């Protein structure tokens, strides 16, 4: 089975966002970067598919040089190959990401292409479905369970208040959601093995950015709240305020 997993590098989820002086991006000083948490689910699923069906797992990332770190993390978990599509600069949007990934993917004839359901930086929730449209392949987003039997896919997709049971043909694009599996921790052996795995670097095929961030800001700060300290005795006052002041009840 030819398995490809697309991974991206994002600021650690504990990052306290500081806005850069340009007011158009975050201030990256002191920020540590990690593989997108949802992509770990995708890598884990890729490895399980390989363990069950044979084949190889290739991790692909598009971006600037530091994106290679995401591929290295996939190596540590057990991916076999890595492909880095080098962006000329960091000025790209979801479409150019999807376009560059799909330009590479279209010659690869993978059986399955896995993504995280969403990246936790720009929370685009777009790349898997855009890539699938560009490649004319079926895509199941937000997958919490995946079964592949005799070239047929049955997946569970999370929706409001439940899940959809989706049936599909192969090849397929999958967006992995938490719950699909429990990603493995790299062990010492796999961390050592990862060091010697080469990353193939290829140039981007498309450049362009139609999205302009005019301003990045912090969410409006709440004026300091009314905090009561008499426990149970404050309950009726709280409810009164929720009705009369906040008008939410």
């Amino acid at each position, binding site marked *: 089975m030819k398995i490809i997993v697309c991974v991206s590098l994002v600021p650690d989820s504990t990052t306290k966002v500081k806005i850069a002086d340009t007011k158009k991006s975050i201030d990256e000083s002191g920020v540590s970067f990690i593989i997108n948490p949802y992509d770990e689910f995708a890598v884990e699923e890729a490895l399980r598919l390989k363990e069950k069906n044979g084949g190889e797992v290739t991790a692909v990332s598009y971006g600037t040089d530091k994106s290679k770190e995401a591929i290295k993390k996939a190596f540590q978990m057990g991916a076999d190959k890595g492909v880095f599509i080098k962006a000329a600069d960091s000025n790209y949007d979801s479409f150019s990401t999807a376009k560059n990934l799909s330009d590479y993917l279209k010659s690869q004839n993978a059986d399955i292409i896995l993504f995280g359901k969403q990246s*936790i930086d720009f929370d685009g929730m777009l790349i898997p479905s855009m890539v699938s449209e560009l490649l004319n392949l079926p895509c199941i987003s937000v997958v919490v369970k995946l079964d592949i039997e005799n070239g047929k896919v049955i997946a569970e997709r999370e929706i409001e208040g439940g899940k959809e049971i989706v049936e599909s043909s192969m090849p397929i694009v999958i967006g992995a959601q*938490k719950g699909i599996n429990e990603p493995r921790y790299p062990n010492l052996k796999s961390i050592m093995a990862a060091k010697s795995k080469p990353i193939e670097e290829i140039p981007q095929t498309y450049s362009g950015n139609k999205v302009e961030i005019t301003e990045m800001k*912090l969410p409006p700060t709440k004026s300091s709240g009314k905090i009561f300290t008499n426990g149970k005795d404050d309950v009726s006052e709280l409810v009164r305020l929720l009705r009369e002041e906040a008008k*939410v009840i």
Partner: protein
Amino acid sequence: MPGKILAFAESKEGKFKNSAFEVVSEASKIASETGSELIVFAIGTVMEQEAKVLAKYGAVNFYYTDLNELNSKSAKQNFIYSPSAFAKAVSNFAKSMNASTILLSATSLGKDLAGRIAIQTDSTVFNDCVDIKTEGGKITASRPVFAGKSIVDIRTDSDKITLSLRPNVFKPHVGDNDKIEIHKVDVDSLGISDADFSSVVKEVVVSSEKLDVAEADRIVSGGRGLRGPENFKMIEELAAAIGGATGASRAVVDAGWRPHSEQVGQTGKTVSPSLYIACGISGAIQHLAGMSSAKCIVAINKDKDAPIFQIANYGIVGDVFEILPALTEEFKKVVSK
């Protein structure tokens, strides 16, 4: 003359979702601000009877395709939804009407379709918008990034744009329009073929009849402070008293006390209710990421220094075991009035 604005009105079992009213209402506002024409499109069953409810939100021209007729284009049987066929239907309809702006709601369906529609209609797409402005006929949007820790204002030079709107954020505006023209769209005009049904939804499993946390306007969430799964009864009772949904922190989801579908936060759901009551939740940055855009946040925690109090509009420092039952009783008194 700017291109038309198309609002995709999502429905379920023949009824429009609340988020459809938000989308139609916002699209109607954009249309009047930019001097363009609004068209509303839906795919579903029994649309003709239902469509009238959209008039008061500003819909004057309603188009729909019958879901069963759409599905009959497939050789497969007994299915509910096909992402590609839906995306193609919306896209081809938008193209045939010369719509340059497409609005949907950022529900699980809308987010599934937005990227596909953007590729098919060659438009620039923003998911999960929380604000939309028009300036000189151009649309700018705001959307949360870094799980809500920051907000970006964005614009595009492209002349086509697809936007999904976060549910519960745009309040539907009721106007005095009561006239709506209903047009049935012939499936054959949408260019759908069997190939568009490579993946289909065979079945929907409802995990509970309860309101989903992502759709609720009032949420009561519990964390590790509840000490055990059995005590979430207090959370459920409080939620029931105010007609809200129950949520949870990751700590209690990971512990198996609550289902993952209830998790609020960076790796759970992002919610924007009017009222969010956090009980026994410390307020870790990843939890705040999912709920900080709630209009009114109430925190109940025994630790006065818990970070949740920093973003709370109201709070009580105290024991959940004492406060929750009292709060439920108090709400019952006023809500039933």
